[in-house]
């Protein structure tokens, strides 16, 4: 589903992603772990083209994303094409980023109605189904501010799902939540994984990674240090850096 | 209210026949258009004011403008305009001329030609009974309200000041206002001792307001129609004005506003005051 080859990204002189290659199978769950500043968020944002990239091939579903080939070179895609390609990828942010001026239902309907231009009635029925699915059927008319963090994050997931994406990106979806609320969100994510949604998840919840991930990728200093099944990377890390990191998080 | 004298109402519309000598002098562009666009300043009774409750201008200046248009065989188009935009408007060819009680001075003649059409004096207005015994020779050290940029302020006050200084007295304490009402209201709240402005306007104001009276009038001098230099309109207007001054309608317009004594005998051009 995602194929990344030779991805490089720097902010001014600061090389954040040095040379990342990665592939994510359709229908699989990949967890991205690593210390603060290792470039996890930046990688996710590059996949969704919220950041421009300096070099590298980025294929989503076999299609070149955010760039076009022209005379043997890669050229940044036009803004319209980038926007269109983003409709196929859903993203869930750490701080939820719900639209505060719209109700839960309106948040979910925003994309399908105003970006995909699908008929309102049809979208509404579907949005209500989605909210029900994340356990918030009774909160359709609440504003984000009136909801707990866990509820907000579940609405953010519904909003991403409403675009019927091929791929879901999660950036530390539970780290802004009180411990009591974490469970709510992880439960929804496990459901999605079970249904075969392709997901790329930045997380510190090693429990979740062990339980739900098909692949765990450990990043540090802008490169992929180690990747493999959760058992191998978390249970039996090969690299010193991975071991040092895991000991700190598990402590 | 307050218009028993009839000055608040318009005089009967006046008209005269076209004057062929004047018409002959008209530049082609004007005679082709058939319209004379005259800038009249905003509201200042009795020289120009809106007929009550309407947007129609009446008063001495509009009536003179009407006579000039008749004499030139043109249709009059009155364009009411704030002073701030009359001069730029003339330059912008928005108007062909302005009838706005302008006193010709050397400085002003750099911008405009002037054709005289009536004499106007200056007057002193004081509270009724003149408690301070104000007169032209007793103005030294008094608080004198005048209008911004007025003839009184720019030409007459310096002379009065000089006289006071020469006599070893305080010069006049000048207060400038934008219009007569503000000056009069300053007099009413006892911030000024006397208002010094154009005679006709002050006479009208005292008619409206029995608390005040005209103490003295002086310095009767002609005012002119202002025309942009180089438009070819000065000569025809001069010719038209000469004919108007000789016509009986000239007198009847003046008398409608109680200004018979202000008639000029000759339409002189560009005589600086």
């Amino acid at each position: 589903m995602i194929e990344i080859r030779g991805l490089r990204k720097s902010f001014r002189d600061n090389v954040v992603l040095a040379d990342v290659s990665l592939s994510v199978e359709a229908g699989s769950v990949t967890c991205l772990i690593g210390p603060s500043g290792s470039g996890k968020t930046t990688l996710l944002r590059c996949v969704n083209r919220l950041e421009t990239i300096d070099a590298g091939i980025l294929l989503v579903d076999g299609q070149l994303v955010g760039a076009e080939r022209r005379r043997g070179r890669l050229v940044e895609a036009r803004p319209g094409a980038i926007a269109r390609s983003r409709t196929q990828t859903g993203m869930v942010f750490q701080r939820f980023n719900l639209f505060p001026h719209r109700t839960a239902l309106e948040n979910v309907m925003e994309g399908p109605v105003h970006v995909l231009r699908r008929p309102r009635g049809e979208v509404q029925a579907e949005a209500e189904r989605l909210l029900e699915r994340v356990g918030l059927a009774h909160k359709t008319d609440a504003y984000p501010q009136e909801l707990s963090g866990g509820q907000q994050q579940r609405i953010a997931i519904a909003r991403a799902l409403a675009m019927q994406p091929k791929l879901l990106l999660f950036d530390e979806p539970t780290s802004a939540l009180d411990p009591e609320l974490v469970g709510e969100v992880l439960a929804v994510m496990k459901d999605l994984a079970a249904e075969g949604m392709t997901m790329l998840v930045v997380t510190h919840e090693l429990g979740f990674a062990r339980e739900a991930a098909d692949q765990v990728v450990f990043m540090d200093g802008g490169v992929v240090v180690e990747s493999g099944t959760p058992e191998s990377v978390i249970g039996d890390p090969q690299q010193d850096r991975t071991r040092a990191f895991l000991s700190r998080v598990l402590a | 209210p307050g218009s028993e004298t009839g000055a608040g109402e318009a005089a009967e519309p006046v008209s005269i026949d076209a004057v062929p000598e004047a018409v002959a002098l008209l530049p082609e562009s004007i005679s082709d258009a058939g319209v004379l666009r005259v800038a009249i300043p905003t509201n200042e009774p009795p020289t120009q004011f809106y007929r009550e409750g309407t947007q129609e201008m009446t008063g001495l200046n509009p009536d003179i403008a009407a006579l000039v248009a008749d004499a030139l065989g043109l249709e009059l188009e009155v364009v009411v305009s704030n002073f701030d935009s009359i001069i730029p408007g003339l330059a912008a060819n928005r108007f062909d001329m302005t009838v706005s009680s302008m006193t010709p001075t050397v400085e002003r003649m750099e911008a405009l030609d002037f054709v005289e059409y009536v004499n106007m004096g200056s007057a002193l207005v004081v509270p009724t009974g003149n408690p301070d015994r104000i007169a032209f020779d007793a103005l030294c050290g008094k608080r004198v309200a005048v209008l911004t940029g007025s003839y009184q302020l720019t030409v007459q006050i310096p002379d009065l000041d000089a006289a006071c200084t020469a006599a070893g007295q305080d010069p006049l304490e000048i207060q400038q206002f934008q219009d007569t009402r503000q000056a009069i209201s300053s007099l009413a709240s006892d911030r000024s001792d006397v208002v010094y402005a154009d005679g006709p306007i002050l006479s009208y104001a005292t008619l409206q307001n029995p608390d005040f009276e005209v103490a003295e009038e002086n310095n009767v001098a002609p005012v002119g129609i202002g025309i942009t230099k180089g438009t070819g309109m000065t000569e025809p207007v001069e010719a038209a004005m000469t004919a108007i001054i000789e016509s009986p309608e000239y007198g009847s317009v003046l008398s409608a506003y109680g200004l018979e004594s202000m008639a000029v005998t000759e339409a002189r051009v560009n005589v600086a005051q």
Partner: protein
Amino acid sequence: MMHTVGTPTQVQSTLTSLEVQPRKRWLPLLGAAVVVFIVVAGLWDVATNERFRWPVVFEYLFNPQILSGVGLTLTLTVVSMTFGILLGIVLAIMRLAKNPTISMAAGAYIWFFRGTPLLVQLIFWYNIAALYPVIALGLPFGGPSVAIGEANVLITPLTAALLGLALNEAAYMAEIIRSGIQAVDEGQRDAGRAIGMTDAKLMWRVVLPQAMRIVIPPTGNQVISMLKGTSLVSVLAISDLLYSAQIIYALNYQTIPLLLVACAWYLLLTSILTAVQGRLEVRYGRGFQPRPQRRFRRSARAAVRTGEQEDRR
């Protein structure tokens, strides 16, 4: 005052009840009394002061000239405010653009129009014919050009007034809207882009609606200033409300009563605008809850909890 009082049991033994009496707040009450007193006294004084000549006020309140002035004031305000806000939005977006030339162009516009007096701008538009007798599209430095029409014909006094007011207002609104846009969280843009919005849609559906909340109170100020500022167009001999009153008192010298008539109308219009502003603040505050934030959020959470059973999965 704090002083050692012993154990809770010792303290309780000296009390007849554990209820805490709220303190009577004399100062605010006194203040309130003084305020009420001043307002009532002021009103009384105004109502009974003969110099205000209330009969004259009532006589002119619905004078047709005054009414047409009200109409013109409203027209000028509505039309030029509308265009001013629209252009202001464009300028604010340009001002915040990454491209430095575009940003500087907007900056120059704002600098120029905030920097020159409205009076001058009005005179300029009215007399643009003096400078450019014929309005033409064409190349400068003496290049060829196509005349569109004579300036004096194209630009009537009303056009000049609307042009002047709207262009001037746009500069002020641009600053207000800029500060509003800047206050919208960056995460909101990410969220909008992530669902595939183009920049234009993002601005229109996500950023501007949220900026509204911050933009409304100063915009209210601007609308009200504009309402009263239209009297400047009297340089173009257009009679708005205030100028209509001035025309009337120029004739009859009833200055104060006629100014009171104008005030009455302005106060009425301002009241309506203030009410509209209040409703807009509520409307665009939805989902933000300005003041009683804590209270609302908590009780909302409490409400959430009652639905906890079906909520937890």
